[in-house]
C-alpha cells in the first residue's frame, strides 16, 4: 500500500481510464474514465498482491485470479483531532454506515437515547448531527430487558457505530459490541468515574457505583 508521486487535481480533471484504475474517494466515473471531483492531491494505492499458486507435484492448482487494479483517489487535507490548526484546510466529513463515532448523550427516554455526534472517525465535526440509540441497539444480548436509565445518562460520552442514515433529523447508532458504549461518565455527585465492569462505573471520590453500558477500554 504505497502512494506514488502526488500530482494536483481540480474537479473534472481526467485521472485515468477505468481499465487502469479503480475509483476511490474524491473521484467519479464518466465515459469509462476516472475524473477528479475534489481539489486536492492525487494518491494511487496499489492493491495487495494475491499469493501466487503453490507448487504441488501431484495437484493441479487453478490459475491465479487477475490482479486487482490500483485505486486512485483525491484527498484534501482534513483537520484531524490531534493536529494543530496552522492554516490547515478543513473538510467536512459525513457519518457513514459502519463508522465509529463519539457522541454525547443529550436526552434519554425509556425507548431511546438522543445523542449529538461530535467526532466521526478522526475528524471533529463542524455540523451538529443528531443520533439516536434505540433500546434494542444498546446491547447484543437480552435486548428486551435493557433499561436506558441504567445504560446511559445525559452528559456521557459514548462510542457508537452508525447503523443507518436514519430519517430527516437523526442518524441511528448502536452500541451492541464490547468495545462500544460509555467511555466517559460523570457521577451524580459531579466527580469523574472509572469503569469497574461491563455495566458499572465507580466514582473515584465517594466510591459509589453507577450503572452504565461500559465500553471495553482495551
Amino acid at each position, binding site marked *: 500500500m504505497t502512494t506514488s508521486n502526488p500530482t494536483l487535481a481540480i474537479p473534472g480533471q481526467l485521472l485515468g481510464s477505468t481499465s487502469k484504475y479503480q475509483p476511490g474517494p474524491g473521484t467519479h466515473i464518466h465515459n469509462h474514465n476516472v475524473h477528479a471531483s475534489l481539489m486536492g492531491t492525487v494518491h494511487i494505492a496499489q492493491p495487495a498482491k494475491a499469493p501466487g499458486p503453490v507448487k504441488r507435484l501431484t495437484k493441479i492448482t487453478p490459475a491465479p485470479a487477475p490482479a486487482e487494479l490500483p485505486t486512485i483517489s483525491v484527498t484534501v487535507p482534513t483537520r484531524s483531532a490531534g493536529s494543530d490548526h496552522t492554516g490547515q484546510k478543513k473538510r467536512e466529513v*459525513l457519518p457513514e454506515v459502519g463508522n465509529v463515532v463519539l457522541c454525547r448523550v443529550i436526552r434519554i427516554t425509556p425507548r431511546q437515547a438522543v445523542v449529538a455526534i461530535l467526532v466521526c472517525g478522526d475528524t471533529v465535526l463542524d455540523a451538529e448531527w443528531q443520533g439516536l440509540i434505540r433500546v434494542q441497539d444498546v446491547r447484543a444480548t437480552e435486548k428486551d430487558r435493557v433499561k436506558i436509565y441504567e445504560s446511559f445518562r445525559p452528559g456521557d460520552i459514548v462510542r457508537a457505530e452508525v447503523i443507518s442514515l436514519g430519517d430527516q*433529523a437523526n442518524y441511528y447508532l448502536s452500541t451492541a459490541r464490547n468495545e462500544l458504549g460509555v467511555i466517559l461518565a460523570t457521577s451524580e455527585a459531579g466527580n469523574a468515574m472509572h469503569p469497574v465492569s461491563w455495566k458499572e462505573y465507580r466514582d473515584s471520590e465517594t466510591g459509589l457505583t453507577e450503572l452504565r453500558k461500559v465500553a471495553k477500554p482495551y
Partner: protein
Amino acid sequence: MADRRRINGPPGATMAPVFEDDAGQPEIKNGKGRDRAPNVIRKTFLKTGVTPSASGSAYLEFEGSSKSGVSGLKLSCTVHGPRSLPRSSPFSPHIVLSAHVKYAPFATKQRRGYLRDPSERDLGTHLETALRGAIIADRWPKSGVDIIISIIEGDQDRETSKSQGDETWDMMNVLSGCITVASAALADAGIDCVDTVAGGVAALVQDAGEDSTPRIVVDPIPSDHEKVLGACCVAYLPTRDEVTNLWFKGDLPASDAGLYTQLVENGIQASRNANRVLVECLGEATS
C-alpha cells in the same frame, strides 16, 4: 430663544450642495467603442480562501475601464457546508443547494435597499440552476450547502448611454461572474463537483454609424456600444461539453436564423476563457 437642553444644529436655514449637471459636457461616447477584440474577455482576478471562517470562499474582480467609464465588477462568495438541514425539513437523499445573491447598497449607481429585491432573487435562481448541474449531489445525503454572494461593486458605468435606461445587460456580466466565483468557492470548500463551471456572456451589439452591421462580441460593456440587441449568459462545463444554464435576453432580427446558435457558441467560448482563469487559480490554491 435657544433650546439649551439639546444639541442643536446651526441656526438659520442650510441648503444641500448642488453639483453641476453632467449633461452640459460634450458627447464623449463617439469614437470610444470597445478596445478589445470581439472574442477577448476582460482581465480577471480570482482568489480562493479569503474568508477563513467559512467552509470555502472566493473573491473575483473584473477590471474596470476608465476609457469606457466602467467601474468593474467585484464579487465575494462564501460557501457554508455541507451542514445538517434544519429539523423541520424533509429527508433528502441528496444535498440541498441554496444560493443567495445580494448587491451591497453602495454597489450600483442607484442605491439599493437592504432587503433582496426580485432581480437579486432572479440571479440567485439562475446561479442555483447553473451549479446544480455541476455538484455531485448524492454524495451528501441529509445535508445542505449555502452559497452567499455579495456584489461589492456592480459592473456599471458612470454615465449610461442615452439609448438604454435599464441595467439588465449589466446583470448578465454579474451572473457570469457569480457562476465563476461560486465554482471556485465550492472547490475550495471540498464539495464534490463533476467539473468546474464558468460563466460567459456574449452579446449582439450595434455600434453607432449608419452602415454598421450588428456584430457579436464577448464580455460586453453596454456603454461601449450604441445599442445592445440581445445577449446570452452561458454556464458551461468544459470537460463534459455541457451547458448547465442558459439565460437569453433581447430582440434578435428575424432574418438570420443561425444567429441564436452563433450567440450561444460565442457564449461558450467566453465561458471557456473564464474557465482557464478558474483552473489557474485553483491550481495555485492546491500547490
